[in-house]
């Protein structure tokens, strides 16, 4: 990925990510998140990780964000909810500022002290279908199988929560 491409993509990513945070309307904020996730997939494409890029769009931009939108609509969050979201109380705000400040100092220290590594050329087939499959089904077999348990827990949890709400 050339520096120009990276600059364009990174700017678009940062702008859309900022829109997620600052936009007063929850639905538009969610849509900005969809754009952010889509642009992230484009970054993956430029890194040669085609499989990951496609899965990123399918799972994050296509599935998880639909749930986000559903929740926003289900709870009927509207633009007037924005005011309520910003009322955090003085203590809450102080905490947020301190937390953000610490993070900023840490990041600055990191960037100043640690030299940037030269961008490595990914090995051939990196992030492609074959590489992902080998990693999943040969190298990390147990975590992969455990994922199914995790998903099962998610199913059970969702049903239990939803049915308690309905009852």
């Amino acid at each position, binding site marked *: 990925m050339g520096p120009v491409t990276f600059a364009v993509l990174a700017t678009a990513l940062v702008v859309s990510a900022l829109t997620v945070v600052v936009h007063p309307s929850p639905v538009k904020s969610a849509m900005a998140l969809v754009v952010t996730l889509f642009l992230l997939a484009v970054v993956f494409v430029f890194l040669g990780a085609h499989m990951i890029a496609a899965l990123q769009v399918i799972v994050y931009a296509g599935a998880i964000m639909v749930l986000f939108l559903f929740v926003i609509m289900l709870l009927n969050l509207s633009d007037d909810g924005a005011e309520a979201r910003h009322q955090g109380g003085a203590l809450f705000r102080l905490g947020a500022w301190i937390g953000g400040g610490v993070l900023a100092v840490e990041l600055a220290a990191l960037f100043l002290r640690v030299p940037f590594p030269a961008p490595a050329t990914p090995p051939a087939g990196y992030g492609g279908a074959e590489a992902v*499959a080998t990693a999943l*089904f040969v190298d990390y077999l147990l975590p992969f199988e455990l994922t*199914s348990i995790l998903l099962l827990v*998610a199913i059970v949890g969702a*049903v239990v929560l939803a049915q308690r709400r309905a009852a």
Partner: protein
Amino acid sequence: MLDQYLGVILTFGFAAVIVGIMCGASMVLGAHHPSAVKQQVFECGNPPTGPARGRFSVRFYLVAILFIVFDVEVVFLYPWAIVFRRLGVPGLVEMMVFIGVLAAGLGYVWKKGALSWD
């Protein structure tokens, strides 16, 4: 490698222009005579009352969660399907365990009646 995506980028550009023109044509070409009645949303001929964006059934929310879970499952199946011939019998067993656990999940949801809309 990237020149494959040149076509995708170009298609995105052309498609955006075509669809944009299609969506915007009426704004430019069409008449513009707004009136209080015309701008009302349709509600069986009555003046609409109350906010339109009310809450809706929790079932849709459940469908969305189940969709994510099974979508993630399907996503695991794609790389598996590509290398399946190389993995052979161990690959089949691996995936049978994975699908088995999630089929149990589907059975649970089914039994709990979360899939029935009555």
